[in-house]
């Protein structure tokens, strides 16, 4: 068992986990320890993207969100970061657009596509998303059913739905609290602003 606690910020709360093995993958931590089975295991080698989650870090005073493969990422590597999994998105435009555009068939790859779309959504201030940008954002997600066209449609359609943005200030405050030495931490959750909080 690892002696260091693993701490990250998720859904407005600091999550503190102890005893996570050094070589535990983030995917196993999510599915087997935290029972969040929305994130899927496909290839287990960073090719298919079914396991995609989004991590957030502070970069030059701003929150930067990135889609990553949780299957080959060590759980301890997200210590001090913010984390979003598909369970944390509630009727997000990325999800709504996937439904409207028929972007999901068997559904196994869908959580991964949704998380890549969520990262794309958050990385763009405004303006339309081009087909090429959508292809770039989804370059790490494989789908055997749809032929991709409806998913690319969804990527372009999500910007037209009612906006739903991450509360950057709240997440940054959470990340800064995580950065403080552990003994200064309040062991309770940071107040989540409201239900629409991502």
């Amino acid at each position, binding site marked *: *068992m*690892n*002696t*260091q606690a693993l701490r990250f910020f998720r859904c407005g709360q600091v999550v503190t986990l102890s005893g996570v*093995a*050094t*070589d535990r*993958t983030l995917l196993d931590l999510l599915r087997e320890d935290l029972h969040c089975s929305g994130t899927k295991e496909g290839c*287990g*080698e*960073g*090719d298919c*993207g079914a396991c*995609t989650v989004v991590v957030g870090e502070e970069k030059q005073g701003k929150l930067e969100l*990135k*889609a*990553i*493969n949780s*299957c*080959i*990422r*060590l759980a*301890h*590597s997200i*210590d001090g970061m913010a984390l979003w999994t598909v369970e944390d998105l509630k009727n997000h435009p990325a999800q709504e657009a996937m439904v409207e555009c028929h972007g999901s068939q068997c559904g196994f790859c869908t959580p991964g596509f949704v998380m*890549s779309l969520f990262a794309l959504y958050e990385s763009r201030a405004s303006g339309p998303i*081009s*087909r*090429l940008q959508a*292809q*770039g*954002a*989804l*370059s*790490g*997600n*494989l789908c055997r059913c749809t032929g991709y066209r409806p998913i690319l449609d969804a990527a372009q359609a999500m910007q037209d739905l009612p906006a739903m943005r991450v509360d950057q200030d709240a997440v940054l405050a959470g990340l800064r609290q995580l950065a403080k030495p552990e003994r200064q931490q309040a062991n309770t959750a940071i107040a989540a602003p409201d239900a629409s909080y991502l």
Partner: protein
Amino acid sequence: MPATFSPKTLKDLLSLRAQHPQAQLVAGCTDVGLWVTKMHMQFARILDLTRVKELRRVEQYKHHIAIGAAVKLTDAFAALVADRPQLASFAHRFAGLPVRNSGTLGGNVANGSPIGDSMPLLIALGANVVLMSARGHRELKLEDLYTGYRKNVMAKGEVLAWIKVPRAAPHEFSRVYKISKRLEDDISAVCLALNLHITDGMVARASIGVGGVAATPVRAIKTQAALLGQPWNPATVQAAAQVLRAEFSPISDMRASAAYRSEVLGNLLQRYWLESQGAANSSLETLVLEGDAA
């Protein structure tokens, strides 16, 4: 006691590396992660360098760019593409976005896979690596790092800290070609990077890196010699393509046969020649299927 070490300074990293030479050093873990999921390897001690603040930087100098070992591939390629815009599509094809968001350029180089795509490019661009330890540092040509299949000259306690990439020169014509079965998210059968300086119609400098043809990423020394000092014309290209096809003894595997690998290397040199003459439609990458590409 099992532990994950995540030092925040270079000094702490080097001292931990000296104290725990058995600890598995990791950066983005996009390959080491497979050792866990596919080979079921277990690591009691992990030394993660991605929090080291000095190594998270891309530093711009007059003659080179220095990329720290903790810089993600996304950011490392952004810096390389800023200096050489023609590398944009290669950066995109290097791996799917989630892998580029975790993996590092330093990890790709240190891992030393013969089909790692950054090394042929970095060899052609004349990059150096800086190895650091608690005892000091040394700098060597990137190709001199490798001694065999996934083997390198790094001593116990040494860490690959920086990659130094010379800036684009006015007379250089540099291109990198990746041959894989799938355009995105795939592994190279062959990767060829060429960096020639053509002055007054003559090849004044030739620097060529190749992947997928030997146990390590390699420099095409014989082909460079066949080009250097020659007039830049079809006859030179044809002769050099023959040298390039014969220079290595690649293996056959599920990605390509040995014969294909050798043949395609020469063909890529022909593509490079055409592009140097202004040909625009020399590869599938220039085709855009969707009307709405803007």
